[in-house]
């Protein structure tokens, strides 16, 4: 069942959204959600509903902007894209995240802790 999938934990969703938009350019909400799931190799389960407040927050902070457009199958949809500030923020957060994981990785490496 879906129980073996991890929920997206708080704070990382924003980073994932930014990264997704960097990779894909313009994308609508549903597309962002699906893309995050795919990228995670279906290990993550996104509650799509939590995505929309997160998108609104990013937009209020000026990291992304939105525009109504037409989707591939001719449906009217709202498209999000990264702003310049968003690109910078992505770089900054990605760097911080890498640092954190690198540190944790060292801690978790077997037999390396007390050296």
């Amino acid at each position, binding site marked *: 069942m879906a129980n073996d999938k991890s929920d997206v934990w708080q704070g990382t969703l924003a980073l994932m959204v930014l990264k997704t938009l960097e990779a894909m350019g313009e994308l609508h909400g549903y597309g962002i959600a699906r893309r995050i799931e795919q990228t995670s190799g279906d290990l993550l389960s996104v509650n799509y509903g939590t995505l929309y407040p997160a998108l*609104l927050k990013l937009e209020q902070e000026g990291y992304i902007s939105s525009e109504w457009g037409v*989707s591939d199958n001719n449906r009217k949809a709202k498209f999000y894209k990264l702003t310049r500030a968003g690109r910078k923020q992505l770089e900054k957060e990605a760097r911080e995240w890498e640092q954190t994981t690198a540190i944790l990785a060292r801690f978790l490496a077997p037999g390396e802790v007390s050296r």
Partner: protein
Amino acid sequence: MRAIRAWFLRVGGLFGKQRRDRELAAELECHLQMHINDNLRAGMTPEEARRDALIKLGGVEQTKESVRDRRGIPWLESLLQDVRFGLRMLRKNPGFTAVAVLTLALGIGANTAVYSVIDGALLNPIPFPQPDRIVDVHARWPQFQKAMLSYPNFLDVQRENATFEGIACWRTESFTRTGLGDPERLQGKMVSANFFSLLGIRPLLGRTFRAEEDQLGAAPVALIGEGLWKRRFGADPEIPGKSITLDGKDYTVIGVVPSDVHLLRFRGSFFDDVFLPVGQWDNPLLRDRRNSLGLRTVGRIKDGVTFLQAQAEMDRFGKSLAAAYPGVNDGLSVWIEPLKDDLVGDIRPSLLMLWGAVGFVLLIACANVANLLLARSSGRTQEFAIRAALGAGRARIVRQLLVESILLVLAGGAVGVGLASWGTRGLLSILPSALPAVARVGINWRVLSFALGVSVLAGILFGLVPALRLSKTNLQEALRESGRGNTGAHHRIQGALVAGELGLALVLLIAAGLLIRSLEKVWAVNPGFDPENVLTFSVSFSSGIMSSPERAHAALHGLVDSVAAIPGVQAASVDLGVLPFEGDSEVIFWPDEKPKPAKMNELPITLTYFVGADYFQAMRIPLMRGRAFMPTDDLTAPPVVVVDEDLANSIFPGEDPIGKRLHFGTGPSQEIVGVVGHVRQWGLGTDPKGATHYQTYWSFQQLAGPFLPIAASTTYVVVRSARSPASLIDPIRRGIHAIDGNAPLYDVRTMREIMAASLAERRFSMVLLGVFATIALLLAAIGIYGVVSYLVAQRTHEIGIRMALGARPGDVLRMVLSRGGKMALVGIALGLAASLALTRLMATMLFGVSATDPITFAGVVAILLGVVLLACWIPARRAMRVDPMVALRHE
């Protein structure tokens, strides 16, 4: 930065809600459709596809809700919702809203009005910069606590002090202006050159005096007040350099200054029209160290110097001045007093009492509105039960009710401030002379913020009780009971509030009653003369006439003769210097037969009245022994004096004072020819502490020397007539102009008016407290009426059953009245206890009644009981008319 931007957008998110909601719905719909399409492609059935998509989205409505929370500011939004809802509720109950708003408006308005007076008269009476550093400089003599410095003493202190930024002096003087239109009497000041800069008064036009102009022999210059400038010169911007004629002398106007320079607690308020440099005054007495000539001294203490340091320096000055001029300055000391204390004076206790009184009125208003809310809340129990059932927390419901209360109180406050600004103007126009610096009293930002603070406090005060009560009611019960039943606790609160209101109202009524009785007693005091049908006026003859005793006496004689010749006039006399209740002219004296004491400052002091032969007759001051003055008591006759009975009894106990002689510092001794009754110079109430009690009358015809122009600069005339005083004015004016065409006639008043004016402060407190007590009584009556009516309405059913079981209307009446009576008795007990404690504080304002005057207490309790009975009787009558059948069927 990002966070601030986000907050701005969220505040913006409060608006354009519907469009955003539509967009969000469209976006989510699009999301769903894309998801469903994908699911279909993956091979699900349409139902499955839709169901799965909805589950993944976590529900459309929940998503919308969380987006909305992020979009705006949830608590602000729900607050706005509460406000909108509250406004709707208030609009739906216009009767309730009107009564509550009006009640609060009365309470808040009264508070605001009194606060505006307190703000202007008590807290900020001095309209100059850094008012706390301005002090009055007084002299102290062994006989006088508060005396004035003479000009030479002032100059020494001014020159040598180190703790003051400056010391200035001033004296009031009036002038006769001639040329350009009718001659007129102008009020003014003679000031030292630094007077304006010291106080921080800037000229509106031109400049103020220079030090070299404040000297004998300097070119005559004058400043004019704003009032005169506008009134007489049409606000001419070219006025500096033009000339003005005062007392027959031409002065060059050098500038215009504001008129409202209030430095004294005036009996009336007047505005200064002209200012002259005091140093130019050529009266030789000014430069005589023994005379103060009404000179007042103010100083501004330097920054960083304490009051005590400044006082210490003054102590040194007092000692050195006393040592340097023995025989003149013996016993002199110099002391300072904050100008504010001097200005505020004895109005403080009255104002504080009134402040307390309006506080009571506000409490009563709050209790009334709380009762209204309580009564109304019983009708709303169901509404709140439903809200609670739908998930509203207790805090949310309390907040909703508080928002409604605050809305009520803000509306009440707005109306109240309107009432206050109107009421304050009204008050000041009725009783202007009781307050210092009246020009400054009005609605300003301090008063407005006070009103706002009081309003919000009141809103929380009366809103919290019903809100907490209501939020505590049991859900199920409320729903089941269909909102009728209210618990006994509810009634107990209402009863307690009404009892409290009655108690507060009783305190105010008793205080007002005590003041009314005091005024009655004061008014009944015998002033020592008969004020009925006595007209007084003032006249100023030009300086040419007043410079020689012969011409002055002739003019004054001519004046009295012309007035006495008017038909209906029974007696007339001049009175120079002091009029009963007004003015102050004092000299030392000692009896001839005893040796002159070595120290001047141990001598007794007496008031001096310079009067004509018919003065005692005109005033009807009783002659006890000897004779009054005669036309022959002039400069060629031996000097004589008439004394009052107090002087006669104290100085010559057990002896016949007639024929004894008194010395008055200068000149030959004067023979006592008569003894007359004592006059209450200082007002009808209790004499102020240290007031001079002895009185001597001098024949004005024996007045000569340099005193004459001073004494005669204000010539009062008293006229007793059988005719209405108003009809005398024209003939009097004609008589004056026949003697001196340039002499203005002014200050025309009856003796009764002067007496009434002397009681202005007393009347001010009494009228205000009376008004507040009446409002309090009215509100309390409405309160008890409301509660008893409510009770009757609630118990219609029960009353119906009782009557069906045989109760007579009388029984019902008794039942209802006893409910009201119980509240009244508790209230009266509380009120009496509080009154006994509080009225003692107003002992200084009372005259002739004790603070626990049983007559006042009993009378007021009777009035209150009567009003309570009336307020209960109306609903009781309604209860008596209950038709048992109708009442029972009603259920």
